């Protein structure tokens, strides 16, 4: 009876991920075998082709209706997976374009010439002088992106954990690769890694406890086990709590948010932009799937917890933001506050709704996509404000940007308005959908707190807008002239933010037909 059945893998359905992983491997071979001066363009072509190819395959699969539980029960391809995979691929493509920007940086990318050298050493100076570039960033990026996609589609706890590590490890490295302010960047990478490892430990311990209670890794089995009245539920609850902590760390929810400001500031800005939206999107969706499919029967345990966390996250993110003097730090706290708003929708737990209404999953997906376009665009603009050749994030240096570069300052203000949730921006509709989900779930006063938090947060966004438009321009600051690689994410971000604000029906219709998890 020792016959092992060969695993059945639905290659076509999983093709989008396979393309990304395959391209990442090719990218590594390119690093090994191609002469240095050919690598940059080759990598760029590989990344671009991989993402576009994966996207086309994804859409084709979607239209052919390939859904279900795949790969021996370890991955789920359902509506939310398709929507957010598409989202991740689009955001990934926009983010990687900023990675490749060279024109604005004097002909080299913003990544360290030689990340292994000691900052300030002779070897570093030599590498910089030789205008060496780290093109490994591209395969790392692809691995990370593929990991994120796996993370949000994972249907068992082990896949979930492996995917978590697959997308996190490259990110730790990418954070440490800034060309300028390398010590800060390396410190950020180390912090991120240590705390990430810490949270992974919690997560893994949680997995073990839940497995101990349910005897299974797959979400479907857990869901059944949860509904059975058995002794020793403490094991299950503790395990659930620890797993939730692990994912909340990635989302950047208070009190697991401490890394966010430091890492956002230290990491190279293009990486920050990528991280800010894609990590958050993947982790939010994974949290939703975990809680709704595996632990839907335990919702009375996790709803209060998430409610407390959501309140803390919104309020702290908004209040902290008030006194920030650094644009990247401000955006980091803004991202914390946004995590809180997303959690507000998660708490609502509106699973089954009348036709035309949006489930919580739908609301979160819309929120993430709306937030994503503005985030990618905003961080792309952050890369362009310079002082003596290097990026400057001090708010004082952003003063009077409106006069120096009205178009960029105008678009940036528009993104800030979207973050603040002003009508006619995508952010407004996103907030509306999220709050409505919590409202219908019976958490009315949570919505009241959320509205207050968004008003506080609006204050610092508006403060930055005022600084940009109504203060005299700072001396010695210049705005770099980028190539299309940076312009495309900025313009696409602005147009999408406007379009989703004026005619959100385009996306709302899509998410409302694809907003139920498959079990």
């Amino acid at each position, binding site marked *: 009876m020792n016959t092992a059945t060969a695993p059945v893998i639905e290659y076509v359905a999983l093709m989008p991920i396979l393309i990304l992983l395959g391209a990442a491997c090719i990218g590594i071979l390119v690093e090994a075998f191609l002469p240095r001066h050919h690598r940059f363009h080759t990598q760029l072509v590989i990344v671009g082709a991989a993402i576009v190819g994966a996207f086309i395959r994804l859409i084709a699969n979607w239209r052919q209706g390939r859904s279900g539980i795949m790969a021996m029960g370890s991955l789920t391809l359902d509506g939310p997976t398709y929507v957010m995979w598409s989202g991740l691929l689009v955001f990934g493509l926009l983010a990687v374009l900023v990675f490749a920007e060279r024109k604005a940086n004097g002909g080299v990318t913003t990544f360290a010439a030689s990340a292994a050298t000691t900052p300030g050493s002779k070897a570093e100076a030599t590498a910089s002088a030789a205008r060496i570039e780290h093109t490994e960033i591209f395969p790392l990026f692809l691995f990370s992106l593929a990991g994120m996609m796996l993370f949000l589609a994972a249907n068992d706890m082990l896949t979930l954990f492996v995917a978590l590590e697959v997308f996190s490890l490259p990110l730790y490295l990418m954070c440490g690769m800034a060309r300028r302010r390398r010590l800060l960047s390396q410190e950020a990478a180390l912090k991120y890694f240590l705390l990430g490892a810490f949270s992974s430990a919690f997560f893994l311990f949680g997995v073990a406890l839940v497995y101990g209670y349910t005897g299974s890794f797959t979400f479907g089995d857990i869901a059944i086990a949860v509904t059975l009245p058995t002794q020793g539920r403490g094991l299950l609850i503790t395990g659930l709590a620890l797993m939730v902590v692990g994912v909340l760390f990635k989302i950047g929810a*208070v009190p697991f948010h401490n890394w966010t400001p430091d890492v956002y500031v230290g990491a190279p800005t293009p990486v920050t932009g990528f991280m800010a939206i894609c990590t958050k999107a993947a982790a939010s969706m994974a949290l939703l799937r975990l809680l709704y499919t595996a632990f839907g029967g335990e919702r009375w345990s996790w709803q*209060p917890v998430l409610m407390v966390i959501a309140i803390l996250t919104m309020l702290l993110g908004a*209040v902290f933001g008030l006194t920030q003097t650094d644009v990247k730090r401000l955006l980091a706290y803004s991202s914390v506050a946004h995590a809180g708003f997303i959690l507000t929708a998660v708490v609502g737990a509106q699973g089954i709704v009348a036709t*035309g209404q949006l489930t919580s999953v739908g609301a979160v997906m819309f929120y993430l996509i709306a937030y994503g376009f503005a985030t990618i665009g905003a961080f792309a603009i952050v890369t362009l404000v310079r002082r003596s050749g290097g990026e400057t994030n001090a708010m004082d240096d952003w003063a009077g940007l409106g006069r120096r570069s009205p178009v960029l300052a105008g678009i940036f203000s528009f993104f800030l308005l979207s973050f603040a949730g002003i009508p006619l921006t995508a952010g407004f509709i996103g907030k509306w959908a999220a709050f*409505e989900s919590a409202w219908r779930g019976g958490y009315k006063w949570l919505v009241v707190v959320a509205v207050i938090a968004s008003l506080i947060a609006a204050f610092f966004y508006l403060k930055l807008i005022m600084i940009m438009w*109504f203060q005299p321009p700072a001396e010695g600051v210049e705005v770099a002239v980028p190539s299309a690689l940076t312009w495309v994410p900025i313009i696409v971000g602005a147009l999408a933010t406007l379009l989703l604000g*004026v005619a959100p*029906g385009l996306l709302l219709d899509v998410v409302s037909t694809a907003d139920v998890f498959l079990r």
Partner: protein
Amino acid sequence: MTLLETSVRLLPAVGMFTWAWTMIAVPLAVAAFLLLAGKVADRWGHFVAVGAVVYSFSIAACLFAEMVGMAPDHRAVDAPLYTWFKVGVWEFPVGFQIDQLSILFALLITGVGSLIHVYSIGYMAHDERRRRFFAYLNLFVAAMLTLVLADNYLLLFVGWEGVGLASYLLIGFWQHKPSAAAAGNKAFIMNRVGDLGMIFAIGSFLAQVGTVRFDAVNSMIGAVDSGWATAIGLFLLLAACGKSAQFPLQGWLLDAMEGPTPVSALIHAATMVTAGVYLIVRSHAVYEHTPFASMAVVIIGTVTLLLGAWIGSSKDDIKKVLAGSTMSQIGYMILAAGIGGPALALAIFHLLTHGFFKANMFLGAGSVMHAMDDDVNMRHYGALRKELPITHATFLMGYMAIIGVPGWAGYFSKDLIIDAAVEFRWFIGALAIAGAGITAFYMTRLMFMTWWGKARWRPGVHPHESPKVMTWPLVILAFFSVVGGMLMFWWIQTWLQPLLGYHETMPFEPFTSLPGWATLAVVVLGVVLGWYTFGRPEVTIPIEAPKANAFVTMGRNDAYADAIMDVAVVQPYAALGRGIVGADAHLVDAGFMGMGTLLQGVSESLRKLQTGYVRTYALTMTAGVLLVGLVMILSRMG
């Protein structure tokens, strides 16, 4: 039930009405074009902007003409555009309601707007950022039209925010003046407080009525609990106070005078600041269910009409006198809107006449500033009548209209409001009459200090009349300041009846009613007082504002009476005015800014938690895990 009478049946839009949205789209597109076009459009961009507003005006005029030709019950038209978004059970349409009320506003906005656009060609001729200025003006017109044409509260709110943005950009237009930038900020913050009211009102509508459409809200508000109706009424009032500079949110309007003068005329006199009046009149069905909120509206209106008049009396800056006067006049409109019933139409009537004569006087003030090298201090004016004859004549018409000389525009509209106020509560009426007297006083003061008396010009100033492109709009507005009342008083109440309810119209009884005579008497008294204090030939107006001990330095014999006047009337009056302005600056502002400061303090102290040490972070995370565990255990126990 007045309810059923006021629930308007909206007809689907046909013909011209389906093009109503272009009134908004064209100025908006031109604004975008001018902002993006760059320097190529510097030389001709402003003509495009003028064209856009004139286009909107002609559409509005055509629609108005069509509506006149229709039966009274068939004039209200709904032109839906598309569904903005649909979340849950709530649906948010983008659509326009063109009815008796909104068309009057559209005519005012585009009509006065066109004149002010033309005037600005001359006023901003030497400003290198003229193209941008016109783009903002067009943006404002588009937003204001959205505000008044919207068929639901949410779209109204979009316009509401849009005019706020445009106003903010235009107040701070001369960013090189730090006071201008600060004023922009103050307007911004105070308006946010008002917005809060708007947001709460919209939320309450959704929660209680389930929709934000005007027609549905109007017909269903009767079923709403009266406590909620009161709350909604107060929220809407808060919103109106913010936008219309009513007590206690009035402070920003004085500072807003930092903006270019055409902006003050268009936004801070004729149109945007009256949005609060529009909001309350539009929501009249809500106030019919809540005597408490209606009374609050009446009180706010009365307080502001007196407060504004006081401020107007104590300022030396010509624009700030006019700004105080604007507050005061809007106070009258809010008062009428709060009284409700037949007075609703009067609020709109006064709003329209005020739009004419106040825009006229603001533009006149701009013409004076143009002549006096942008000096706004009236103590440096005097005897400008001969140098600026056209501006003087037009300004005089505005003056006679605002104080209510029989036959002039303000006479009709203000006297009707005073009649309604007397009928409502006699003491409110008495206060409104007193306000009319103070208005006569400070406007007379303005006239003497600016136009008549002796010249106190600063050395090197050579006043001159403004170019034709500026004087023609003045002449047209002066014409309407004279005849506006006569043109409208006999039909406006019946015109608005299908929309605001079939109340008995307020009869216009000029020389038969007691309040009418009382008002006239008080106005005459105000004028005489103004003349006695500032206009007699022997009075010299000091170039520096007099200190509290001014009477000592003044002469003995001739000035003796003047000194008594000064001590007994002017000084306490000015001091009170100054006191009120000061209290406004210190108490009210401090209240608003205090909240921000408190949050900043909390933020500062919390920042210390963000040490940068991984060990602290890890500790926080561990604490977080304990928190999560604790909440889970607690929630399972409970």
